[in-house]
């Protein structure tokens, strides 16, 4: 069983939903495909997707919705 982490593309604020009214991109336990968006990072009022590199199962998120994150900080753990 291999694990990998989805990293933040840049420093900012992490969001699990496309907008406050919408459902989260992914829930813990969901299957993800390569290139799927698992969350957004807001930096200076622009939004950048955090994407899964490979297909697998999203085990857990490592930061809370709305938390400040650094560049390259691990956001979620995925089991391949």
């Amino acid at each position, binding site marked *: 069983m291999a694990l990998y982490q989805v990293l933040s593309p840049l420093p900012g604020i992490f969001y699990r939903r496309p907008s406050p009214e919408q459902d989260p991109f992914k829930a813990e336990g969901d299957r993800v495909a390569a290139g799927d968006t698992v969350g957004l990072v807001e930096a*200076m009022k622009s939004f950048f997707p955090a994407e899964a590199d490979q297909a697998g199962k999203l085990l857990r998120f490592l930061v809370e919705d*709305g938390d400040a994150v650094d560049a390259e900080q691990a956001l979620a753990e995925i089991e391949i």
Partner: protein
Amino acid sequence: MAIRKLFVANRGEIAVRIIRAAQAQGIRTVQAASEADTDMLACRMADEVVVIGPAPAAKSYLNIDAVIRAIKESGADAVHPGYGFLSENPRFVSAVEEAGIAFVGPDADTIAKMGDKAMARSAAIAAGVPVVPGSEGRIGDLDDARRQAARIGYPVMVKASAGGGGRGIRIVEDEAALEKMVPQAMSEARAAFGDDGLYMERYIERARHIEVQVLGDGHDVVHLFERECSLQRKRQKVWEEAPAAMLPEAVREALCASAVALARRVNYRNAGTLEYLYDGDTQEFFFIEMNTRIQVEHPVTEAITGVDLVQAQLMIAGGERLWFGQNDLERRGHAIEVRINAENPDKMFMPSPGQVTAFAAPQGVNARFDTLLFEGCRVAPFYDSLVGKLIVWAPDRDAAIAALQAALGDLKVEGIHTTASLHQALAADAEVRRGDFHTAWLEGWMAEGRMQAAGGQAKA
């Protein structure tokens, strides 16, 4: 009652600007800061600093309860909201008013009224100010659409009532196109928004964005001439000028008089800006909205009038009546402001937060740099990318562009990327130098790769 202690409910360069104005009047300052901002320049300058919450703006600068609590505990007798954040939030302003604290701006009712586009449009019509010709209410059917479009004048822009943010908008050139498009737009609107309502307004090709600065004391209103802010990217202004050089004098007078008429009608108090679209082909102007706060680009108006707008705001909020009349105001020369953002113009304007390793501001008699930067400061990723505003003044526009080029050459910001190179490229561009642009011009210019072309020339 003159202000004695001012709470600054903002951050960044505008907080610095507000503190400078307060200090000039001997007013003590309390600076609000998020946990990420405790070392920002405004905190170093203020008499007191109060931490209002965590880094994300929703939990600090936009958290009404937290900000109100901090204001009350600070013992401040006035609050300056800057721009953005809570500056035009009627609920926040009501809470400040209820606490018996002076808000540096108009009252909550005026903010609510002018912040509602439909209400502001009605107020403009009542004051005799031209608005963009549009349909009265929704379009009923195709016959109604034909009648209304003929009255408004082609080309028209047809929008879905339930749409927003540019979605569901179509430009229609003539009646034949209208007949084809309306049924289709209705069914698309129904599918996309669950509502087939349409409305239309005149489409102004090559529109310029021109705005008028006003100051009111609740009794009298004066204007401080206009600004031209057509150079925009993603609806964000990047370069602003005063005056609007291409405006015929008679049009300028009518435009500024209309702004005063509308501001008088609502007994406007404090600084405000009325935004217009200007059609250079027909020399018509149309009111679009009012901003009931100080604006980012206020320094160009200060440069041509000699009026310190932020100090004026503080005096009016302190109960002063206007101490000058319209005839005391003159405009002199030409001013340009460019926004220096922490973004990388060579990488699609990707945000560029980080530590500033070296910094030097342009010097000179007619160059001003309003900024949050200092050597060693950290530019946080959580907020707007604006890190500085370079303002130059010269006797005429050509000389102002030359002064801008020199000042941009003197600006040194290392450790982060900035948009200074975009402005060097713009200043070197022939159309910019002729003043020949409109609100969609900059995005077209960039799409054609002309930033790189002009940038190469500027460096050579």
